[in-house]
């Protein structure tokens, strides 16, 4: 998987490294701002109010 991605990154090695870092950053941002806020609703302890339902 990772060797395949590396082979398909453009440019010489320094450019590849920069693009790879940018990809990692994009994935982390996606996780922190989209995936995790959605996933945390399943973490126990998020229900703090009393509710008839």
């Amino acid at each position, binding site marked *: 998987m990772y060797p395949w991605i590396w082979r398909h990154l453009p440019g010489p090695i320094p450019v590849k490294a920069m693009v790879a870092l940018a990809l990692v950053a994009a994935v982390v941002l996606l996780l922190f701002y989209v995936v995790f806020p959605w996933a945390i609703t399943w973490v126990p302890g*998020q229900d703090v109010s009393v509710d*008839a339902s």
Partner: protein
Amino acid sequence: MIARATDTYACVVTTGDRMRGVVGVIGEVLITAGLVVGLFAVYTLFWTGVETANQQDALEEQFEALSSGDVQGPAGPDAAEQDTPEPEENDEAPVAERQPLPGDAFARMRIPRLGESWSWIVVSGVDLGSLTAGPGHYPDSASPGEIGNFAVAGHRATYGEPFAYLDTLQVGDEIFVERGGREYRYLVTESFITVPSDTGVLLPVPGQPGIVADEASLTLTTCHPRWGSTERLIVHGELAGSTKVPSAQNQASGVGEEAVA
């Protein structure tokens, strides 16, 4: 001269090579999954707190503006005499301020038992979104100081965990709530654990349906156990007095004289 691995693959691809490739990919996926789970732990335990702290900073400014802008006290028949002056030359002040939107700064709460620096802006609303910013006021419950039940829900874990140690409150402990230029002093009367559907704790007279309130009480709710959702921890208190908050500038220097409500 060393042949590049890709050249080798290009020439002869054995079954062993294929197996190694497949196992390698599975390994990468597992390592990646491990990293993602680790990041999720960082997010849950640390990053939610950072986000909440940022929102509290913004809410603090909003609350200061609200206080200096002379927001009217509790809507409806209020316990404390309206000693705040009429909003003069403030024709821009929206009437809708009586009905704050979910997530708006609503009050400031201090509980000395939880630490001298324990001070949170309570927001309006108890939906999940509002509660990420801080403790939330049940919209249908009374306002601070008002006759009836002023009810607040808050996180006990994650999102800055304002109510993490709510279980350490003892009968007689002080809870201060500031809104509309006054700071109301409640004293804890009881603390217990109940089921999640026990909405009776929010009644004007907690636990007593159909009774018309003649006192101002307070209710705090959070999850129990701390990292669970199976029960709720409830703290009740009753109003013991209120003081006028001097003004935005010197309110950090302490409270004024005590008045009995």
